[in-house]
């Protein structure tokens, strides 16, 4: 097992390198000098500009520039935000927990909805429940997150006035503060979670239907185990294997949804940091945040791989 994880890690590293290469090439291909905008930015002192040009070695050959840039990224030297006047890594570390909190809770919510609904629908295919679940799932993943977000604000904030629609992160403590933190996270988590739940429900249902007709399920039923046990122990356990892969493939879309949600509800995470940096032409931050998102995707893929190896004993022996 540990050997398997090690092997997956070895595969993850080239893909991280590949992603960094793609990012760098994009930056290098961009018309003009990406730092020329800084020349007109009065916030940037000339010596910082010169230091930057030297650090990025803008006049070196391209592969050298890539290696320099990569070395800097690995060392945690992610540059300096001209707008916020702090180091980029500090800025990102400040914002990252919020994003992970929102994304994590929404994934949890999605799983809590998708697994029971998908499993139940698959055990009664074409029943009323199945058709309702299918319809809702279909509508759910056709609704873009920005529109659901707006609908939620309209219903729960404007009409019903139950929930705040602007996320504030005032530091504090005590039960009322905690409740307030949870209350303001409800809508963003619902928006992201429901969107995810929709596609996950479809994955779970079709994976369950694929497994349910297999021979070993009949074997399990022939043992008199009872419907519930057969479904949970024999069908679900196997159906989760492809579902894990599909969820991992969804991760880029999840982070995309997180950016939109953070923007709608003004959540101070790295998604809204990305948008504000783009609007403010803050190149080092834009690059770094994009790279962080890429790392997160690779990380979640790695987690999925490990889960996969744990769920499927055939994998670890290969």
């Amino acid at each position, binding site marked *: 097992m540990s050997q398997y994880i090690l092997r997956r890690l070895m595969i993850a590293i080239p*893909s991280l390198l*590949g*992603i960094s290469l*793609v*990012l760098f090439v*994009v*930056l290098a291909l*961009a*018309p*003009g000098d*990406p730092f020329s905008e800084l020349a007109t930015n009065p916030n940037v002192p000339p010596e910082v500009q010169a230091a930057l040009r030297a650090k990025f070695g803008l006049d070196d050959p391209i592969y050298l520039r890539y290696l320099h840039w990569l070395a800097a990224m690995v060392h945690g030297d992610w540059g300096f935000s001209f707008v916020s006047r702090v180091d980029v890594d500090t800025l990102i570390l400040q914002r990252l927990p919020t994003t992970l909190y929102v994304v994590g809770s929404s994934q949890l919510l999605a799983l809590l909805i998708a697994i029971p609904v998908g499993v139940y629908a698959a055990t009664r*295919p074409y029943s009323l429940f199945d058709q309702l679940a299918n319809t809702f799932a*279909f*509508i759910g*993943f*056709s*609704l*873009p997150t*920005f*529109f659901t977000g*707006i*609908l939620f*604000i*309209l219903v729960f*904030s*404007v009409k019903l006035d139950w929930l705040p629609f602007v996320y504030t992160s005032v530091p504090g403590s005590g039960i009322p503060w905690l409740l307030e933190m949870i209350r303001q996270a409800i809508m963003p988590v619902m928006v992201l979670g429901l969107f995810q739940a929709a596609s996950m429900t479809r994955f779970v249902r079709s994976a369950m*239907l694929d497994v349910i007709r297999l021979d070993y399920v009949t074997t399990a039923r022939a043992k008199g185990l009872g419907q519930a046990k057969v479904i949970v122990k024999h069908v679900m356990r196997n159906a989760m294997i492809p579902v894990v892969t599909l969820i991992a*493939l969804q*991760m*880029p*879309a999840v*982070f*995309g949804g997180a*950016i*939109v949600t953070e*923007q*709608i509800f003004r959540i101070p995470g790295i998604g809204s940091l*990305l*948008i504000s940096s*783009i*609007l403010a032409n803050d190149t080092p931050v*834009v*690059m770094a*945040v*994009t790279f962080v*998102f*890429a790392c*997160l*995707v*690779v990380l979640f*893929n790695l987690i999925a791989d490990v889960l996969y190896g744990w769920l499927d004993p055939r994998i670890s022996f290969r």
Partner: protein
Amino acid sequence: MISAVLLLLLIAAVVIGPFIWRVSISDIDVVAGLQGPSLAHPFGTDDLGQDLLARMIYGGRISLAVGLAAMLVSVFVGTLIGALAGMSRGALGYGLMWLTDLFLSLPQLPLLLMLIYLFRDGLKALFGPEGGIFILIVLVIGGLRWMPVARLVRAQFLSLREKEFVEAARALGASPVRQVVRHILPNALGPVIIAGTIDVAAAIIAESTLSFLGLGFPPDTPTWGRILYDAKDFLDIGPHWALFPGGAIFIAVVAINFIGDGLRDALDARKVI
């Protein structure tokens, strides 16, 4: 079936719309601002008193055009890469599949935003503010969505190239290009059409998302996403302003997804549940 009719109606509305509803998209009438639906303005007006129906029709043209164009780009790139990977048995195939997997794990939206951020000004200078952003968005969305098509095409190639009729063509001395174009591609078409259909929906969402984040088309170009972006600060006083464009995006996407699903069922008749 219903969704096909719905989509056709939507397309007809945005194509013929301007000839029937001849109100300008940019006539400003601040006095008539933020009105709900009425006879004069069936979809109401925005904060500047601009007619929302006219703006929606105009925006729909752009949104649907972006969706279709981006789909064409992604299907073209995907088919090309998938076909190359499917035909070559050596390192090229592996390399291309690695690239496909790499692109699949790229965070789409951040990259999309970054690309637009970096290239926006250059293309604006070349093709004008609207043309430049149109080309950029289409290329970027299309260029980031070709991977499913590539995988499908490759899988089809791998299974089809061992089939008898392709063997027969090879035995008769057909060139690789001829084998691909005449014998394999037509058979791989079904899944590609399905993936392409779903790509249209995805591209519409992607364009709307960009516009919604304020990073798509310029403010005076009212795409559906852009209208929604402008409306989101007036939810309490003018909810209609957000509901119409949002609803339009939703209907278009649901209809296209349903068609894709229907096509899948129709083309994959052998599949037993």
